């Protein structure tokens, strides 16, 4: 066994540390320790690398490491709490650029290599480049050095598609020819694609984009690993790449968005405008996705109706409320005077479930606060949240005051199906942009949500 094998063993250990690190980062109690573990892994991988007999020029190395360490450290220590997310974006961009440079350097060292390596270099540069400029734009948007509003112009989508296709073509050329010009073109265009891709995305979505680009920079690292046939690069890069994708999806869910919507939503935003959406379609949502939104909510209002009584869901509703409170959210119950089928119907049920009187709000008390509510949970209520009562003079319930659920950021409506309420009316709320239906018996739906919370 020569030094290589020892280095490889060290890499295995480092990989294991990364695995534990990522796993532990996902749990509140262990996160800090996980971060420490993964940093130890990083140190190990770096030190091990120094033992390669090809590594000779320590002076330059040490200089580079020192400069990088000092800059990184100072930034990280100096940054204010509020500035952290953009800093992470910047760091991430540097990581991507570093991968790009590693790929490029390899090209400079070994002009003649096999197809696989060429492909790997191509991937490294492409992904690294997009990561770098994409992250940089994200940084600018978050730091307020650039407007957070989506930057849009006509034909944007098409231009991006063309750039992407050219990049694919250039890839073919490069792998076939191994020519320097194609490589430089790839570098330039991938940098451009990063800029173009992130420009149309709004500032509010930047955290998701950073998570996504972070996953990208992981993949760039993994690709670089294939360039230089290095295990730890492959493992760590791939771990970050895939876990980053999962994280991206989770973050989208917490915003009640799909990833596609985040990535390309900006384009849509240009066209849509504030259409009133009287028609449209009811959009369902899975219990799991609803969980992510609830988990992130700070202010939740339950609006129970006759359906809660039918489902006898009061006990589980109470339990979910307790859970949300433990999770840091403010929870209230908005009771409409005619909810249910007898005066005080909801009171009977919620008292049975021991919901504290303080959490019960009358309609008039809750309505002015409704627009600060993150999630309105409409539990088998229908007529009492029907905006037609306020909007539509032709409706038989026009003039009845309702609980303004539709003003909440997100509305989840729990119903078994498309059944109407006591008054037999269609409910426009269910068609609104911010409303999502969760079909099924309310008790079972809530139980399932609780299950999500507990797992």
């Amino acid at each position, binding site marked *: 066994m020569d030094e290589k094998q020892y280095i490889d063993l060290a890499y295995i250990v480092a990989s294991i540390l990364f695995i534990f690190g990522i796993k532990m980062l996902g749990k509140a109690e262990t996160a800090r320790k996980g971060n420490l573990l993964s940093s130890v892994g990083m140190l190990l991988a770096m030190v091990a690398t120094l033992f390669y007999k090809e590594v000779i020029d320590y002076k330059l190395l040490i200089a580079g490491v020192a*400069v990088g360490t000092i*800059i990184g450290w100072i930034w990280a220590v100096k940054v204010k709490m509020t500035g952290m997310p953009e800093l992470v974006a910047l*760091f991430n961009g540097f990581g991507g650029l570093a991968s790009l440079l590693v790929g490029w350097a390899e090209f400079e060292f070994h002009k003649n290599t096999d197809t696989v390596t060429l492909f790997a270099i191509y991937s490294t540069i492409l992904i690294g480049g997009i990561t770098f400029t994409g992250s940089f734009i994200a940084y600018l948007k978050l730091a307020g050095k650039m407007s957070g509003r989506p930057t849009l112009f006509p034909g944007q989508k098409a231009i991006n598609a063309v750039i992407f296709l050219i990049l694919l073509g250039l890839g073919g050329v490069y792998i076939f020819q191994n020519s320097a010009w194609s490589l430089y073109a790839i570098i330039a265009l991938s940098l451009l694609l990063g800029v173009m891709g992130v420009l149309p995305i709004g500032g509010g979505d930047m955290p998701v984009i950073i998570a996504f680009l972070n996953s990208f920079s992981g993949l760039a690292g993994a690709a670089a690993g294939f360039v230089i046939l290095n295990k730890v690069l492959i493992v760590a890069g791939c771990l970050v790449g895939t876990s980053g994708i999962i994280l991206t999806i989770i973050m989208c869910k917490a915003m009640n968005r799909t990833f596609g919507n985040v990535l390309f939503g900006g384009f849509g935003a240009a066209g849509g405008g504030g259409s009133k959406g009287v028609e449209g379609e009811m959009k369902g949502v899975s219990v799991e996705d609803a969980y992510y939104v609830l988990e992130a909510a700070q202010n939740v209002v339950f609006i129970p109706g006759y359906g809660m009584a039918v489902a006898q869901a009061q006990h589980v509703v109470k339990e979910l409320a307790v859970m949300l409170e433990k999770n840091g959210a403010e929870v209230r119950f908005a009771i409409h005077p005619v909810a249910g089928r007898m005066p005080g119907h909801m009171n009977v049920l919620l008292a049975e479930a021991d919901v504290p009187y303080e959490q019960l709000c009358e309609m008039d008390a809750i309505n002015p606060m409704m627009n600060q509510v993150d999630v309105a949970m409409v539990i088998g209520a229908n007529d009492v949240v029907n905006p037609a009562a306020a909007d539509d003079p032709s409706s038989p319930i026009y003039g009845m005051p309702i609980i303004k659920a539709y003003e909440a950021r997100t509305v989840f409506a729990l119903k078994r199906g498309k059944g109407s309420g006591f008054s037999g009316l269609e409910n426009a709320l269910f068609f609104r942009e911010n409303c999502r239906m969760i079909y099924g018996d309310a008790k079972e739906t809530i139980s399932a949500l609780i299950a999500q919370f507990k797992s």
Partner: protein
Amino acid sequence: MENLEILILLFFVFTLSAFLGFELIQKVPSQLHTPLMSGSNAISGITIVGALLACGVADANFGKWLGFAAVVLAMINVVGGYVVTDRMLGMFKKKGK
């Protein structure tokens, strides 16, 4: 051929890591989204290993200087990433108490 075998094995390693990556993150509380992102961002600085190799070689090729730049950038990513993450998690803990 041996090289190809190694490549395939590396590919195997890549596949398994991908599965592990998917399995590891299952449900993350929303407060941890940012730290997790930042922490794994630090890990993605693993490209430092490649940078070190590129920078540390003997010949004073242009690639060496690319490597040097890569070392600096990757190092910022690594050090900055870990420190920022730790700070975030530190505050998180204090708040919890």
